[in-house]
């Protein structure tokens, strides 16, 4: 690698991406609840207000439907808004403007309208925040043609993808796991680090089993892979990074090589990301499979508050390892 690298956190990746793009393009601005003076509830946008001022870094009222609508309108008319919805759970309040308006305007107007809107929001359980602050509802958006859906798992991917999102002429939503803001990772130096939308990444190469994992599940898959390696099972970890449009080629190539696939995502197991990717594999790589595709997702219950219950509702490393083992048993 010729370019030099630097270690930053997941949260710093957000701040760097927004500030670099704001310096580069004066039509970019950022708004959300408590994001300016307070720097956001997760403090990831601290410092932006000091650099760019109140015209371009805006504290909004608590009005998700309104914020999103204002974002769509500004995007339609020459600005490039970045809108924060504090918790992904609150996207439910802003749904009309994303689903019925932003996502459809280009198509409905026969290609006239452009909505270069970037939405940042969060997913992820694990903080005892209970049922209205812990959901991972990204599959809802991936169901809608016309919105690009990003779900990065490392600081470098988050930074590069958020920058690509801001430059994209379509509505793009980026889901950040709120448990990962202090996760560290290397990013290339400089302000031209872009990660393409729609391109998966092999996070670890292997030959026996493919694990397709998203967001925080990538870390779990990587550590399960370490454990499994000691047992002689070589795991390849594929991170789609973008859910929509999905890089089907990278996923299918990996599965054709390994012949086994597990798909892991923190969204609900029913009607979600894992079902979509598993059916892709079944449709396009059936002849290569040595075992049925396995899926791990959140248990289909509202996320419970009690620390004695919450962990059992999301996939963990032990569950991944036992899913891998079961694939070998199934064929034995």
């Amino acid at each position, binding site marked *: 690698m010729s370019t030099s690298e630097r270690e930053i956190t997941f949260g710093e990746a957000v701040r760097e991406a927004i500030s670099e793009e704001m310096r580069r393009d004066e039509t970019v601005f950022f708004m959300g609840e408590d994001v300016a003076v*307070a720097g956001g509830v997760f403090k990831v946008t601290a410092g932006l207000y000091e650099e760019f001022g109140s015209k371009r870094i805006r504290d909004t009222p608590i009005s998700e439907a*309104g914020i999103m609508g204002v974002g769509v309108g500004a995007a339609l008319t020459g600005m490039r808004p970045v809108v924060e919805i504090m918790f992904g*759970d609150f996207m439910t309040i802003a749904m009309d403007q994303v689903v019925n308006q932003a996502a459809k305007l280009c198509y409905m107007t026969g290609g006239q309208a452009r909505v270069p809107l970037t939405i940042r929001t969060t997913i992820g359980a694990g903080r005892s925040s209970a049922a209205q602050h812990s959901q991972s509802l990204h599959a809802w958006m991936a169901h809608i043609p016309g919105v690009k859906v990003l779900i990065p798992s490392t600081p470098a991917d988050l930074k590069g993808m958020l920058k690509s999102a801001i430059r994209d002429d379509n509505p793009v939503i980026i889901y950040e796991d709120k448990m990962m803001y202090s996760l560290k990772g290397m990013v290339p130096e400089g302000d031209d680090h872009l990660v393409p939308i729609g391109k998966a990444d092999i996070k670890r190469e292997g030959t026996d089993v493919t694990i397709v994992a998203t967001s925080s599940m990538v870390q779990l898959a990587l550590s399960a892979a370490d454990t499994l390696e000691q047992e002689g099972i070589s795991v390849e970890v594929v991170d789609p990074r973008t859910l929509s449009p999905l890089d089907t080629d990278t996923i299918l190539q990996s599965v054709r090589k390994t012949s086994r696939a597990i798909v892991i995502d923190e969204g609900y197991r029913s009607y979600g990301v894992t079902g979509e990717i598993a059916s892709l594999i079944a449709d396009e790589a059936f002849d290569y499979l040595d075992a049925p595709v396995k899926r791990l997702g959140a248990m289909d*219950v509202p996320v*419970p*508050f009690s620390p004695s*219950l919450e962990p059992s509702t999301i996939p963990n490393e032990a569950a991944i390892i036992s899913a891998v083992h079961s694939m070998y048993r199934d064929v034995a």
Partner: protein
Amino acid sequence: MSDDIEIVQPSSDDSELTHPREFCAEMYRKMVTIRRFEEAVLEIYQQGLMPGLAHPYIGQEASAVGVCTALRDDDYITSTHRGHGHLIAKGGQVDRMMAEMMGKEAGYNRGKGGTMHIADMSLGILGANGIVGGGMGMATGAGLSAQMRETDQVAVCFFGDGAANQGSFLEAANMASIWSLPVIFLCENNLYGEYTSHRDVTAIKEHIAERAAGYNMPAIVVDGMDVVAVYETTSRMVENARAGNGPCFIETKTYRYRGHHVGDGNPEKTYRTQEETDLWKTRDPITRLARRMVKGGMATEEEVSEIDQSIQSAVEHAVEFAKQAPFPEKGEVTEHVYV
């Protein structure tokens, strides 16, 4: 604009209490219970016994207690993320609340809801809420239900100055008004959302109650640090609603002494000033009521401190109860997704 709203004149702390002794003592007890409960919550949080983040109601006690004292057991409330005070004022039991805060099976929600979702349907507490503005429609629906069932129940929708900017307020207030529903929109204006002053994000700078004019309903502003004034104001409007005269808007001017949540340690270093906090503390609702009761000969200083003592031990007992209580069994996780 302010012509449209009634501003209740602050009562002097020297004025005589016109309500019976036991009635005043009960309001005092409720306020002290809330205060001690919240202090205990801060303590168990610091000890690592409470998962998640709770939003303390300390400072705002007169608002919840004044309002709920004007309600019957079968009236409804919808509460907020800052809900402990509302729940205690409406009759919630501190031991089951504390158990819920620690995620225990003996808690109101069997440990599955936690601080932001405590509910007791038998007391008309339709739930605290993690969604700002989440209760607007529900309270209005409870009012519609009472009207359709021809009871004379009333629904109170508690919400903050921040929540007043949610679109759901407009929609619910309009429906409550056109259908003359027995709903009281009770806005607790504590000057801040999370870390942002309401003045920076709200078109109306002084009285949020001015919004009510747009929904053709009466609006009253009252000192939210004076439990008697809040009680008298709410009582009057509750009677009005029971009589079928439709909704109203009450704004209580109040202040949270603590940060937005248990982890927001020092708001005076960031988004508000020490002078402001100190000023509001001089209006402390608990001290004020105690002083008036003593002055009016309703209670001696000793009797007041006896009440304080007994509440202190009730809260300590609640904490002990919650600590000892078991966590829910594993199988609980899939229970109650459906009825």
